[in-house]
Each structure stands twice: as C-alpha cells, then as structure tokens.
C-alpha cells in the first residue's frame, strides 16, 4: 500500500468514566478504501468525531498529510480536505440539492458580508461553481434532482450527495459513517460501487464505518475492528472475517 494520508496514534477519548476510545493506533493509506467495523458502542463514531475535530482527544494524536490535526475545530479540519458524513444524513432541508452542493466550496467571494450585496463581484464564481456542481451531479446520475428539496430524496441519494458535497471542494479523504444503513441491498452495492469508482477515477481515500459486513467486505482493501474502544483486529477482509476474536466479539456482545 502507499504511504498513509491519515494516521491515528494511541488515540483515547473518555467521557467521564466511559472510555469510548482507549488507545487506538491505525493508519489510512492514500487511495485506500478502508473499513472500520465493530459492535454497537465500540467507539467507531467517536473515532470519527475526534478525527474531524468534534472532540479534543483525551490522549493521542491525529495526523493528516504530515500535519497534526487533533484539537482543530471541525471547520478547520474540513478545510484541510477531510470530509465526514453522518450516521443520519445531515443535508440542509431548506436548500435545494444544488444549493447543498454549492454551499460547500470554501472562501467564496459572495460569502463575505461586504461583497454579498454586490452581485457583480461574485456572479462569475457562482455560475462557475454551479456548472461544476451540475456536472458532478450528472456524472453520478443525480442530474434530475438539481432542483429537488432534500426531503424529496431517498436515503441512498442523500448519502451520495453528502459525498458529492465534498467532491466539489477537492477534498481528499472521506470519512463515511454507515453509508449503507437503511439502504436496500442492491442500492447499497451500488453505493459502494460508486465509492470504488471515485477512488479509481479521482484518486480519493475512503474510511468507512459499516455494520453491513456482507456489503462492506466485498469492496474494502483493509479492515480495522474496534471493540470497547480498542483495536481488536485488522487485516484484509477475509483475514478479519476468519479471526476468532472478531467472531467472538460480534457473537458474544
């Protein structure tokens, strides 16, 4: 595998007495599609939350592209090129699909309050971004939803749009929290095909939490298994699936 783009070193996060994470070390290589699995409450979402700046870790470090990023605020982490999605999709319901995508690019001229009233200052940039957004939406078969409200979308489409929101900013790494939850089996496979396609065509990196192992395992290069805030196992999908510790953790929970 290539060099790691995201590294987590001895990461711990305690909530009072609850050790949601307790010394996790792992790395995500560039252009990898990496899985993160574990029983409920094993600390997967917490790991994402610490990496993306939601929480300050109790101990440990997070490195992204040679830079230490733990303790940064979520917006700063995003601007470095790390995009996350949520377990429950969080699009903006009063904006259309297009606007949801248009919102993301950072440092838009028209986002500054003093330039915002003067259309001519940002009109070109806005149109340019709109063309880019439409092109992206079309590329992934969502062209017809440009004007749709978020509430009119299916769960799978919402999850795709959450990812496309990152694409327009040229973000490199995507942390997806249960992208296939609540999605029909075939759609889930389509979603993961989409992810693979992004990796192959755009050279992006994915780090994916997923409970639906039957889908996940067919698409990932490497898997980490969390259990009670610690790394239980890691390896290629088939190695992990045959690891007795993993089987026990999943059955014995």
């Amino acid at each position, binding site marked *: 595998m290539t060099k790691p783009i995201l590294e987590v070193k001895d990461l711990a996060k305690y909530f009072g007495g609850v050790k949601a994470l307790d010394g996790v070390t792992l790395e995500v290589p560039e252009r990898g599609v990496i899985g993160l699995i574990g029983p409920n409450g094993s600390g997967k979402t917490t790991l994402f939350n610490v990496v993306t700046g939601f929480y300050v870790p109790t101990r440990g470090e997070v490195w992204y592209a040679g830079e230490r990023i733990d303790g940064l605020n*979520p*917006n700063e982490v995003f*601007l470095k090129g790390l995009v996350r999605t949520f377990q429950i999709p969080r699009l*903006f319901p009063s904006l259309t699909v*297009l606007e949801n995508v248009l*919102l*993301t690019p950072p440092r838009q*001229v028209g986002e500054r309050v003093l330039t915002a009233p003067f259309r001519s200052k940002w009109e070109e940039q806005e149109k340019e971004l709109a063309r880019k957004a*439409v092109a992206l939406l079309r590329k992934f*078969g969502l062209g017809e939803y440009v004007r749709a409200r978020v509430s009119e979308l299916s769960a799978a489409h919402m999850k795709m749009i959450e990812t496309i929101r990152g694409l327009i900013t040229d973000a490199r790494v995507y942390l997806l929290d249960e992208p296939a939850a609540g999605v029909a089996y075939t759609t889930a496979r389509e979603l993961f095909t989409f992810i693979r396609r992004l990796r192959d065509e755009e050279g992006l990196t994915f780090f994916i939490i997923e409970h639906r192992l039957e889908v996940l395992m067919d698409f990932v290069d490497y898997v980490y298994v969390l259990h009670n805030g610690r790394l239980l196992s890691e390896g290629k999908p088939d190695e992990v699936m045959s690891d007795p510790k993993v089987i026990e953790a999943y059955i014995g929970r």
Partner: protein
Amino acid sequence: MLPSFDAFGFLVSWGTFLGIYAILAVSLNLEVGLTGMANFGKVAFYGIGAYLAASLSVYAVLAVYHVAAAPYTTEGIIALGKYGGASPALDLGIFAASLVLGFIIAGCVGYLLTYPTLRVGPAFLGITLLAFGELLRIFLLNYQPLGASKGLSGIPHPFLWIPDPVLRERLYVLVVLGFLAVTLWFAERITNSPFGRVLKAVRDDEVAALCMGKHVPRVKATVLFIGSGMAGVAGVLLAFYMSSVNPNMFVPAVTFNIWAMVILGGMGNNKGAVVGAAIITFVDRILTFITPNLGITIITPDYVRWMIVGILIVLVLMFMPGGLVPEKPIKTPAWEAVESLEKESKEGGSGGDEA
C-alpha cells in the same frame, strides 16, 4: 363623534413608525428568520441606539452653548428648548453622528454578546439576550446622568430649524423611509447571495454547517453585529422623532412586538417583515387616534390590543406557520447557469447524464 380626521397627518405618523419598526423587523428577520438565532433581547439594541442619540444630542447642545445645567434638570430642558434648532448644521451634524455611532455601538455590543452565546443552543442565547435587555432597562432606570426613570427630553429634531412643523414631519418621514429602503435592499441582497445560503444552512443545522467548513461562530457574530446595528439605527430614528426617551419605552414587550411582526409577515422573508410591521403599526396608530375619544373604558384598550397580538401570534404559529408572505427560495445567478446548461443538454439530445 370623532373629530375631523387629518388623513395625511395620520399617514405621516404611521409612515414614521412603520419605517422604524420595519427596520427592526427586517433586522430581527436576518437574525432569527435566516440565521436561526433567537434574539429575545432586540429591545436592548434599539434602546442603545435611542439613548445614544438622546445623550449625545442633549449633552452636545448644552456643551456647545456652554450651559452648565444637566440635561435632566428643568434648567437644562429649558436651555435645550432655547438652543435646539438654533443651528441647522449642529442639528444635522448631531443627527448624522448619532446614526453612525448608533449603528457601530449597538452593533459592537451585539458582537460582544455573541462571544458567550455563540456555542450554546437557542434557549441559552434567548435567555441571555432577554436578560441583557432587562438589565439595560434597569440600568437606565437608575442611572442619573441619563435621566434615570424620567429619561432625557429636549432632543433637538434634526429639522428643528424648519419653522413649519408639518414640513418638518414630512421631511423626517422621508428620511426614515429612506433608511428602511436601504435596510431592505441590503437584507434582500445578502439573502439572495452565497452569504444568505450560508445563513440558511446555519439555521437548518449549525453543526453540519460547521462540518462543511463554515466558520459558524463568525457568521453568527457578523449577523448579530449587523442586526444589532440596524436596531441601533432604528433607535436613533425613534429618539429624534419622539424628542424624548425614557426607560419604559424599552420593556421586553417591545421585543415581542417586533417578533410578532416577523411572524405575522412570514419568518425568513424580509418583505414579509415589512408587511408585518406595516400591519401592526397601522393598528397601533389607529388605536392611538381612537383611544382618547373613547372616554373612560372599563378595560384599557391598550390591554385588549396586547391580548389580541399575543393570541394572534400563537394562532399564526399554529395555523399559518409561513406567515402572510412565506419564505422564498434563494435566488442567485447559479440558477441562470443551470438553466443555460439544461437548455444546452436539451438541444444536444439526451447527452449529459452518464448513468
């Protein structure tokens, strides 16, 4: 028997109140309708503007004419009556300075107040701002240099040097409506811009907006600065119109009044805020014209007015949540780009969509 009704005079006084309240309503709409910040202390910023204008003008006039008396004493008030209007340049200068300072100072207070409240939820923001408003009123009620409970009077009207009071009023209403026009223009422009998009995103889900790289605290602070500044300007306009201010003009019910305008007009729509302000100020003006002619009533008409507004707001929220002029989607040039793309792809056959 109603006395002869001066329709034009009514329109002028309604127009002035409409202008002042519509500025307040539009600014509150920016805060709550677009950004989702529950500003329950709007009256504070309005009061800051009004008191700033009042104190600046009375102290300046007394200082310029070397009157030693304090503005809240009888001598001071007499002196203000004597010298106000003596110099057009001074009156207009004070007016202009008050407007600028009113915007900046009220805005800065709003900006500073956001620091502790940026991260906490709407409940805490609302409580803090409400408490701040009450605090300010209590301070004014007890602070002698600002006239304590009697407030300050004798604020020189900017057009006091015009001998005809009717003309004076008419000029003033034009100034007020001019400020309303600028406020509305600005609000509409920023609503229909990428900045407006960010505001709505923050309103919908501030955590997600933060995760999408938006500096949510800065956005909120900016909006509170602008919104409070606008409220400060409205306060300045009020002070010069009324020619006196006192702490009881700035009770929490005023905040509620502004909220009522925004809700009635339609949250998230700037024009709606103006419509709401127009309706409520119209009713209020009618009431002030009618009340003196009713003689002694069993129940004070003002109480009935407030009861109705209170219940009306609840009913609007329950049965017409969008208000009279519901929120519209954002209009930016992005849609023009989309339209031309759609036309192209129609002309060029089915091309475009890959999957």
